[in-house]
């Protein structure tokens, strides 16, 4: 009897590991910045380059920082979700236009609509490095004290908005 049970148990354990392993996303690198203050920057605004924006301006508010670009394909998928979210006026969305040309970015927002309270232009991608950006789009949930509470890697979907981001935002706003 033992002869059959042992290989069977080994098989089940191995199958279990493989099943879990195949469902993990190896592209998703957990961010060490969650729970840390959002890195400080000051960048020109996309629509009014003479004005600067800094995360410190947002102290006392819960906000989303969405990293996007006009060349980014997944951003197209995400865009209607952000448009809907901005219509609901639950939480302000700020855009970090990552390694983009100003004309392209403005055209993109004109065509698809602009869900952002404002966007800043990170032309050289330096702020992106500070935030640990490695694939656009990425979205950070930042609390009233300026601490990053969550990082969404890849597009925001109605599912992860409903299940993760909005409940977290509500919880942080209540604090």
């Amino acid at each position: 009897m033992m002869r059959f049970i042992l290989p069977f148990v080994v098989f089940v354990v191995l199958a279990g590991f493989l099943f879990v392993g195949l469902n993990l996303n190896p592209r998703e690198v957990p961010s060490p910045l969650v729970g840390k203050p959002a890195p400080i920057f000051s960048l020109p605004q996309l629509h009014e380059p003479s004005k600067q924006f800094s995360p410190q301006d947002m102290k006392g508010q819960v906000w989303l920082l969405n990293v996007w670009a006009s060349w980014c394909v997944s951003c197209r998928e995400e865009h209607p979700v952000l448009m809907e979210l901005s219509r609901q006026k639950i939480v302000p969305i700020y855009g970090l236009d990552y390694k983009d040309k100003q004309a392209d970015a403005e055209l993109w927002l004109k065509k698809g609509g602009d869900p952002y309270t404002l966007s800043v232009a990170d032309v050289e991608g330096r702020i992106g490095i500070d935030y640990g950006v490695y694939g656009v789009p990425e979205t950070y949930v930042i609390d009233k004290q300026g601490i990053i509470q969550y990082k969404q890697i890849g597009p925001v979907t109605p599912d992860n908005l409903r299940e993760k981001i909005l409940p977290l935002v509500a919880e942080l706003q209540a604090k």
Partner: protein
Amino acid sequence: MRNLLIVLFCLLPSLSFAGEAKDMAEDPVLEKRMIGLADKLRCLVCQNESLASSHAELAEDLRREVREQMQKGMSDQEIIDYLVSRYGDFVLYDPPVKKTTLLLWYGPFALLLIGSGVLVYQLRKRKDAVADEVAITDADSQRAAALLRETPEQTSQAKDSQA
């Protein structure tokens, strides 16, 4: 004229590489140090390539960042700490030993230990089983000796035919 043309054609390939020169630092020593460090770091976009060998745009930006921090006089360790604080241990090809990486570092040794344990157990078990089967009494061995004495030629013949 013909020679001039040949020389011009020979120079053509060098033109196409002119664009890459921008990426190089002025200082070849610093560039070498940067490449040496980037070799130990992982590119986050194409995850099986090092930062030194990757052509991804992010890798280029990160190499620029590393180069600039070196120019500022930061040590290799300070630069590694900076990148780890942004991207996590994932950027290191040689991750540090800590709670979350214990399985990674010592898992193989644990498996080896378990494997050798099972092997030793199986070998012992088999040895006992074999010993039981072969156990012969004194009477058996006397009978065997007697048989051997009686027919020495026959046994040697049997041996030959077997061979």
